[in-house]
């Protein structure tokens, strides 16, 4: 107080001089019994002293016959109070402005340091060090607990309290916190000293998911300046944490996108773009993946001994796991099918299952698989169907029928027991091999296209070319699905005897 009064004496000068000019011996300003300043020094015997109290202390005058001056002195005391109030407010405002300017300058320099940091933990380590430098506190900590992210706990310059204790404490006081309010929690540590832990809530994604904390000995209180600064750093930390997580998410998405792009390239290189010409057959291929990578696969291989293998399959599930297994499966089937002499479809399926079983079992996945072998000379088709959607077989002028699976898909059991069956593919006979993305197309009412409709359609289109049959089926399925987004991959091979 006396410091403030000393610095404000200029404001009292005019009043003091007016009193001296009126004939008093002295005019003085006192605070808490201590003389702050005396104007005039006239001292003589039988002098009187008149005192008027005010907010900041009291005014005194000395002189002869001055008792009647009390009224005027009291008024001056009120005037001095008003003057000193204004002076005090001015000083506080200046201090506030200086503090705010300091905060802005410091936050600006912190911002320069942290703007390139995208790792949230590294960011908070830097902020903790800066906060420790600027706020009168012994220890700083940050606790971040965001859903689906690993928790982050940062301490500076040391960790004197258990993380679990701090997290539990933050949970227990959370319900008592209002936005922007902070609370303290006394904690008795091993050395018997009480410490205060200040939890400052940090809003991340508009909810209180984090805390900045200041730990002080009980007798080392934070000033209002420290609290304001700590709050400013906590608010800044909240925004930076959000940015860091967003940048990390964007980088992760870009990485996943690159990986999917590579997987897509590999799949495209594995799958035929169109079917090769085969003597005695009219063939057509259609492939519409539902997304960039697919679990459907197909192949047509012309072997030197006049045998054509046609293959179609569907891996369970979606995304990268299905795409990886698709590539592996097709490679294995091709290798097994390439063994000389030409193996039968059931043998290819059984041997492929032996090789792939562990991979499918470990991945909790399976693959449907249909393999047909067409003999150019005899026009006979030997086939085996391991859990795949029925193949539609429509003999020329006849009724369409389904060639159903007689064993479970690949990867279910260690051994496969599919059988081999035979049909003929004479001129005009049609085979439609498709994955379930065709028959399981659903309409707005969630009803499936189904095999009954598919067989009727194949009968109607059977006299057309393989390309027209394929396109006709696709158009019908697309019309059936309407505006619904395609949910499953569609692969279809039409093979017609000519």
């Amino acid at each position, binding site marked *: 107080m006396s410091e403030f009064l000393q610095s404000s004496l200029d404001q009292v000068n005019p009043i003091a001089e007016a009193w001296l000019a009126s004939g008093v011996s002295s005019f003085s300003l006192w605070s808490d019994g201590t003389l702050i300043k005396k104007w005039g020094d006239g001292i003589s015997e039988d002098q009187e002293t008149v005192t008027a109290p005010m907010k900041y202390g009291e005014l005194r005058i000395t002189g002869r016959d001055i008792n009647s001056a009390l009224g005027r002195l009291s008024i001056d005391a009120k005037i001095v109070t008003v003057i000193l109030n204004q002076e005090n407010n001015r000083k506080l405002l200046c201090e506030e402005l200086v503090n705010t300017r300091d905060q802005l300058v410091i936050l600006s320099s912190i911002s320069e340091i942290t703007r390139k940091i995208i790792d949230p933990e590294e960011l908070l380590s830097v902020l903790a060090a800066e906060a420790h430098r600027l706020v009168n506190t012994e220890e700083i900590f940050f606790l971040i607990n965001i859903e689906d992210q690993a928790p982050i706990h940062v301490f500076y310059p040391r960790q004197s309290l258990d993380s679990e204790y701090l997290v539990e404490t933050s949970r227990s006081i959370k319900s008592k916190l209002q936005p922007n309010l902070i609370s303290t929690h006394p904690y008795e540590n091993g050395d018997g000293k009480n410490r205060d832990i200040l939890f400052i809530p940090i809003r991340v994604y508009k909810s209180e998911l984090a805390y900045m904390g200041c730990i002080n000995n009980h007798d080392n209180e934070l000033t209002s300046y420290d609290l304001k600064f700590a709050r400013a750093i906590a608010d800044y930390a909240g925004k930076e944490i959000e940015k860091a997580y967003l940048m990390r998410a964007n980088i992760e998405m870009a990485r996943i996108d690159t990986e999917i792009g590579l997987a897509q390239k590999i799949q495209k290189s594995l799958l035929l773009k169109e079917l090769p010409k085969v003597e005695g057959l009219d063939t057509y291929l259609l492939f519409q993946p539902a997304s960039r990578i697919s679990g459907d696969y197909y192949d047509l291989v012309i072997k030197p001994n006049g045998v054509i293998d046609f293959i179609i399959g569907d891996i*369970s*599930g979606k995304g990268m796991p299905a795409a990886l297994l698709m590539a592996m499966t097709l490679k294995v089937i091709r290798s097994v099918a390439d063994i000389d002499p030409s193996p039968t479809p059931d043998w290819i399926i059984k041997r492929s299952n032996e090789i792939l079983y562990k991979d499918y079992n470990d991945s909790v996945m*399976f693959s449907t698989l249909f393999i047909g072998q067409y003999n150019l000379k005899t026009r006979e088709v030997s086939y085996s169907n391991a859990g795949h959607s029925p193949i539609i077989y429509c003999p020329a002028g006849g009724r369409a029928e389904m060639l159903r699976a007689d064993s479970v898909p690949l990867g279910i059991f260690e051994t496969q027991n599919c059988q081999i069956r035979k049909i003929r593919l004479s001129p005009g006979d049609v085979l439609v091999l498709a994955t379930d993305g065709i028959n399981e197309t659903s309409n707005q009412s*969630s009803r499936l296209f189904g095999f009954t409709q598919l067989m009727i359609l194949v009968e109607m289109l059977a006299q057309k070319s393989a390309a027209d049959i394929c396109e006709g089926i696709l158009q019908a399925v697309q019309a059936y699905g309407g505006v619904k987004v395609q949910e499953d991959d569609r692969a279809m091979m039409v093979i017609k005897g000519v």
Partner: protein
Amino acid sequence: MAIKSNVVNNIKVLEISGSFDIYTASSVREWLDQKASEIPANIVIDLSDVHFIDSTALAILIRGMKQAREQDGDICLCGLQQPVRMVLELTRLDKVFEIYSDQNEAIIGLKI
């Protein structure tokens, strides 16, 4: 999709309702991972209220069946609606699971 579980005569029963597919199957997988490894591992999966099933869901049921059989138990299915039954028949997985018309039949069947 929703799941509800209880125990009847020492047999664990899981009732699934809605669409049982890649987007909803994780809760069933977690339940089966736990229950199919506990002895006794006899489980009834009630699909009466399931109107759609996909290959991901089938793979999860198969995994659960293998886990249960490793513990000398088994999984059976009951209450299959026509679309679900058809999927199992077309993939021949109807030969892998015992299939019953309702829960009571399934519980009796597992106890035998």
